[in-house]
């Protein structure tokens, strides 16, 4: 219950962390409310995967992981770079020029499993270590059991996920085709920001 309340109290922070990725992506996709809800659920599924990984680590390492601050930079940096790559692929895959090798493989993979993009983005966004997540991590580590640790993160996930559902209503504007272009531009800018921040974090250049 504590994990759920923690999630409920800090869900807006999680939404703020994920919105830069999710909002441009949903706008760019230009789907209706129902389809958007499915995309959000896939994204949340990815996030759940990230949280379960944290739950596992909290059980396995206790609070040791929280002290390894240098590794946090590596993990978040790598997650940012991955997030940026996924966002760029998501936006540019439909218009990739013929023979663009980097996109050929990605395009084939993602057209076979289109759910991979929101799932992957959700997973990578879930790896972002934010203050509420650290609190959940401490709670999970203090349970001492694997089931208890995973349960804390599961409830934390449920508490935070409530705030994501309204994003589906962006689909109400799906008929405004111009918004797709706006979403595409925003996605590229956000992707570049994450790429820049990710590289800096990964190389230990700066703490963002």
């Amino acid at each position: 219950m504590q994990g759920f309340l923690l999630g409920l109290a800090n869900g807006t922070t999680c939404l703020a962390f994920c919105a830069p990725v999710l909002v441009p992506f949903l706008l760019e996709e230009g789907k209706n409310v129902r389809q958007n809800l499915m995309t959000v659920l896939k994204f949340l599924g990815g996030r759940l995967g990230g949280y379960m990984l944290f739950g596992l680590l909290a059980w396995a390492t206790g609070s040791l992981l929280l002290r390894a601050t240098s590794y946090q930079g590596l993990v978040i940096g790598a997650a940012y770079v991955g997030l940026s790559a996924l966002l760029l692929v998501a936006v540019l895959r439909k218009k990739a020029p013929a023979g663009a090798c980097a996109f050929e493989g990605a395009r084939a993979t993602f057209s076979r499993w289109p759910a991979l993009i929101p799932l992957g983005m959700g997973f990578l966004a879930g790896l972002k270590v934010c203050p509420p997540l650290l609190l959940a991590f401490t709670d999970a580590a203090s349970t001492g059991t694997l089931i208890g640790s995973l349960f804390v993160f599961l409830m934390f996930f449920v508490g935070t996920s409530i705030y994501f559902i309204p994003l589906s209503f962006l689909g109400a504007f799906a008929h405004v085709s111009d918004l797709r272009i706006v979403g595409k531009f925003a996605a590229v800018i956000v992707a570049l920001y994450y790429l820049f921040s990710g590289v800096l974090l990964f190389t230990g250049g700066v703490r963002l």
Partner: protein
Amino acid sequence: MTASTKTRTGSPPMAIWKALLLSLPMFLITALLPLQALESGELSYIVAILVMWLGFNVAFILMLTTGQTYRYRSVLFILLAVALPLWFIPMMIETHGSMMLSEEAFVSAEANFCPLATFMVIVPALVKRIVIFPSALAGGLGFATAAFMWAGSTLALGRGWCSWGCLFGGWDELFSRLRKRAVIKNIDRRWIYLPFGLLLAIVLLSAVTLQPIYCGWLCPSRSSPSFKHLRRSWPLYRSSPLSCCSLPWWSCYPC
């Protein structure tokens, strides 16, 4: 006479005595500037003010006598835009030791008030008596001065500001005059949505970082406080030449 010919030729030329007579009130009112400068006793300052005073007044007389308003307006406009960073950057360095504000200046609210932020800050200042900016309420380039300048220039100049005073417009003017014809033609119409995409990205990223992303990463005037980590993360951009190079781009897109 067609509309295009009228624009190109400007107003009909005026006799010199008429132009001098018409310029006299402006000549006398603006003479307050060099008179004030004389009191300072600094030779370089006096010379600079005198040159500026004469330059503006001579340009005005030339506009009247030749009818070529656009030509002289353009020269003044470009000169202002180019000269502003030359004044602003040393002023920042002299006042704060660098183009960026130190954390001490930030905490002690010694920043010059950002003219772009004035309007947004007025409402919480009036309603909650909180100025959301690390700047003094009064004195120097504080909130009161910025608000007064903003309201005054809006009422007195209106859109005239954009073609006579705005430094971003001046840089636009300079670059648009470098060649007679556009180098890049047939630009995809979708690029007109870039400012909206940029706005959306700025809003979302500001929400994540809880920092003024626009002020830290995009604003070329650098009148807002800079944050320590941004200073570390993008030192090249934040140096003056690159910052100045971003001006034409800035006026096209985020402005």
